[in-house]
């Protein structure tokens, strides 16, 4: 499966935006994991912006970052939102309420609890009416999202925005969930090369592989702490503008081989 990478979005501790993150991923600047600021989604109306859930803010941050480096318009993009667990803070609030005798559930929490809430808010904010998939493949959610987005690019000849995101859950769910850090990454993928395309990407499935790791220990820790951060090895080579092969674990007892070709 072949496609072109148009642009990238980044939001993780110490990786605030693709422009700022590239020197860090190239190894020119030290990686310093810092507390992430809140990201009010610029495209949402002010009242929605204030009360938007954490996962929606995170997904918007990287989608907006990727779009800022592209000439493509958001309403021309199909979308794929890949997340292992969606917004576990909302799950927490719902389950707390349901454990009480009165069982008073917030209607807003309930409709925001759907796994596709980020996709729903994005389509409303961006006027994006094309196809949109929200999916999970647990630790391999980025890999599954990349396959789904690549299939949209190739089979339907669409430009596609892929957003992978997962939030650090509340303390009650932290041990079981296994996501230690909040992080999100986005790629805009296109069927044709544009003057600004960052690289060509060829994806194929293989038998199970040993995943490509990162040399910098703190970045490797980030990669392992959040399903979306499995995107990092690919992003390191993109930041360095170099051709490379990246291996990713897939969800169903198989692996992915990503061949990145610098222009």
């Amino acid at each position, binding site marked *: 499966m072949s496609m072109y990478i148009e642009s990238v979005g980044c939001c993780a501790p110490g990786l605030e935006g693709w422009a700022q993150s590239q020197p860090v991923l190239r190894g020119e600047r030290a990686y310093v994991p810092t507390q992430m600021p809140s990201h009010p989604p610029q495209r949402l109306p002010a009242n929605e912006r204030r009360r938007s859930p954490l996962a929606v803010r995170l997904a918007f941050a990287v989608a907006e970052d990727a779009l800022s480096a592209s000439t493509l318009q958001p309403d021309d993009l199909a979308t794929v939102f890949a997340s292992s667990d969606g917004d576990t803070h909302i799950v927490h609030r719902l389950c707390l309420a349901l454990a009480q005798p009165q069982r008073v559930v917030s209607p807003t929490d309930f409709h925001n609890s759907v796994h596709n809430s980020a996709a729903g808010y994005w389509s409303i904010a*961006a006027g994006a009416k094309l196809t949109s998939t929200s999916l999970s493949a647990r630790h391999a959610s980025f890999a599954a999202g990349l396959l789904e987005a690549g299939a949209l690019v190739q089979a339907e000849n669409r430009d596609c925005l892929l957003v992978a995101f997962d939030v650090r859950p509340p303390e009650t769910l932290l041990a079981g969930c296994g996501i230690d850090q909040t992080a999100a990454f986005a790629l805009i993928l296109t069927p044709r090369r544009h003057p600004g395309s960052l690289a060509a990407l060829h994806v194929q499935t293989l038998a199970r592989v040993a995943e490509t790791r990162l040399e910098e220990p703190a970045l490797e820790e980030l990669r392992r702490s959040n399903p979306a951060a499995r995107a990092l090895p690919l992003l390191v080579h993109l930041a360095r503008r170099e051709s490379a092969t990246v291996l990713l674990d897939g969800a169903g007892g198989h692996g992915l081989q990503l061949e990145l070709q610098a222009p």
Partner: protein
Amino acid sequence: MKPLRITDYTLTSALGAGRAAHLAALRMQRTGLSQVSFETCGLATWLGQVSGLATPISGEFADWDCRNNRLALLALQQDGFIQSVEQLRRRHGAHRVGVFLGTSTSGIHQTELAYQARDREGGGDLPASFDFGRTQNIYSCGDFVRRCLRLEGIAHVTSTACSSSAKAFASACRALQCGLCDAAVVGGVDSLCLTTLYGFNALQLLSAEICRPADAQRKGISIGEAAGFAIVEYSNAPGVALLGYGESSDAHHMSTPDPAGRGALAAMSAAMHRAGLEAADIGYVNLHGTGTQSNDLAEDKAVCELLGTGTPCSSTKGWTGHTLGAAGIVEASISLLVIENDLLPRSLNTRQRDAQIRGAILMENRDAHVPNLISNSFGFGGSNCSLLFGMQR
């Protein structure tokens, strides 16, 4: 698009376990909805509850035990489906068979129970027996099903609320077209939980009466649970096939459809375009038809604009309840039964059609041969998917 043959399928809902039970219920005009109680839920409502889910999963997959996976397992065990997949696996190889499922709430009931247990113990940690990743996680049913079926192809679980398992067909279709797999198990599972019961009640969408789609006095949804699975592959052999699919986003509101039905229209139009068919070719529409005021009106506008007011249509949610993330596979399976058995199910529990609804709502079961039909599934977040099924000759 190249038709995708459905070489086997099965479904389990409140109407019963397996295809024969569903066909019998449709013929006898017997609803699966009843005023049973679920767990400690005190809401006055009708439920499409599946029986036979009290026994925990044991053995190799005991860690995946939760209501959602019990329901998935019960459904897999019907209609010789596991044996069909075994043959499929031998034919293509475990690595070349993908798994694409849909769910809205996965095993969240397990998390609800864990929080209740924690409260009884006076707070602190969740019980040590609670396995978040194998129950609550959205991918849990996909992981469970692919392990049960010993499949190692690409896999994911789509979760776009009530369009989830319809969109699983679209994902599978693209994956096959791109050569990512040679065949796939497609389907979905959604089970009763307190989150959806109290959540829809908080949104004032849960009906105290039985669900009455398209009725002048309709009051909202009855919630059901179900699981269903289908095998899809390219084949020249005659039989039922997915001829087209269409997806769209409303870009309107999180929990209310676009009142003009533009998203629904776009999804149905795209499915017909992919199939290369026109309005006159469509013999029946299985409506999303939730029985809420807003859905039924908006969908009717879209159906009538695309197909006119003469195409027979009905929602089967008066039979099964709204099975949310499983609605796509349930209604796809019922649609396949319609094609194979020349039986159009009526809009059960509908007493008097809403005067604003102009479509040809089936008020009685009808015996008719339908070569092609559309099944609609629409979800929160404005996520729409239409599937077009027909007979490949």
